[in-house]
């Protein structure tokens, strides 16, 4: 067992968990934050993307122990009273169908917009499609997801 201390969505948490516990298991099973999904469990699909210390990571391919001491934002931590502009954009543009991949899409979307802004680069439609390489959606054909991220990029 290992002691994991994290700040999750602004709240300090501490748990004794097995050394092998994945960050996604910690979030879902210890904290009951089930908005973060496990799709493939092999780091292909991106349904488990959260922000660790400000960067998008696949929480199925990170140990909770590795994250210890860090700050995590999950899909539950994005809305601040009102929906986050990225969440609102997915709603406005019908950027989801079944919704399973959506938490990961939104967390990756927020991460890419922040990175492009910090680098002073334009987040074009082509760039969004490239950036979504690690997020798989089997319903939408991506078109409305891309439109949602484009809209949010203009509002963030």
């Amino acid at each position, binding site marked *: 067992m290992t002691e994991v201390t994290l700040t999750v969505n602004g709240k300090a948490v501490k748990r004794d968990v097995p*050394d092998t516990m994945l960050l996604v298991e910690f979030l879902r099973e210890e904290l009951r934050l089930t908005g973060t999904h496990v799709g493939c469990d092999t780091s292909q699909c991106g349904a488990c993307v959260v922000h660790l210390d400000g960067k998008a990571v696949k929480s199925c391919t990170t140990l909770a122990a590795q994250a210890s001491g860090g700050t995590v934002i999950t899909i539950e931590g994005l809305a601040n009273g009102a929906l986050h502009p990225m969440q609102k954009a997915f709603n406005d543009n019908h950027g989801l169908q079944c919704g399973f991949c959506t938490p990961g899409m939104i967390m990756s979307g927020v991460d890419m917009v922040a990175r492009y802004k910090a680098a002073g680069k334009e987040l074009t439609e082509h760039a969004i499609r490239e950036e979504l390489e*690690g997020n798989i959606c089997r319903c939408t054909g991506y078109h409305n997801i891309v439109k949602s991220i484009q809209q949010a990029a203009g509002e963030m």
Partner: protein
Amino acid sequence: MYPTKYHRPASLAEALQLLADNEDAKLLAGGQTLLPTMKQHLAAPEAVIDLSASGLSGISNGGTMVTIGAMTTHAEVAASADIAAIVPVLNSVASGIGDPAVRHRGTIGGSISNNDPSADYPAALVGLDARIVTNKRELAADEFFDGMFATALEEDEIVTQVRVVQPKRAAYVKFPNPASRYAMVGVMVAETASGIRVAVTGAGEDGVFRHEGLEAALSADFSPGAVDGVEVEADGLLTDMHATAEYRAHLVKVMAKRAVAAC
């Protein structure tokens, strides 16, 4: 995942001590290969030693040489202005590895120590005639990579840095597998102080290799057309469900041409 004991040493010295004390330990860099391997029960180390707090991260600009700490992530290499000023081809290599979330965790030291036969960094570093620094010695990339998933690293050795001298020109082009996005074939072409170097990943049964025929042809005439006259043998190349050795041999030439054109 089988049970393991997680350690996060606060220094390289402490990491080396843990490595010496735990016979069946694995070093954990970004974990983007080791953790999936452990989840699939293909690896079951009794201990994992996380190097993230061992002070092995960072990029330093030495004018005509760049030094990259082993725990520097692919995203950091991709975005580095120092690397862009000295070896811009490494920005592009790093920005093509995995996906954005994987690049936030995966590291250069982890990638080269694993020496996956389809990984990008082995070809990049062999092509650029890079030096690999460990806690014990400094090795040429040519000596470091030693067959599929094998390196010259000894049991008590940890990669600490990678050093790359500014090439005259260089480009890396890969043909990614449509599903996994790993290189089916990736070719680094570079003109360095030691001449023209052509390194190939994804194709060799023994992992990364240099192609002497291509190097000789490009030394005589550095143009995409010079690749046409070179015979790339299918012998010793990989055949798997994705491609035959013959197809990979063809791809080596196509990727080499594109890399020369991009130089």
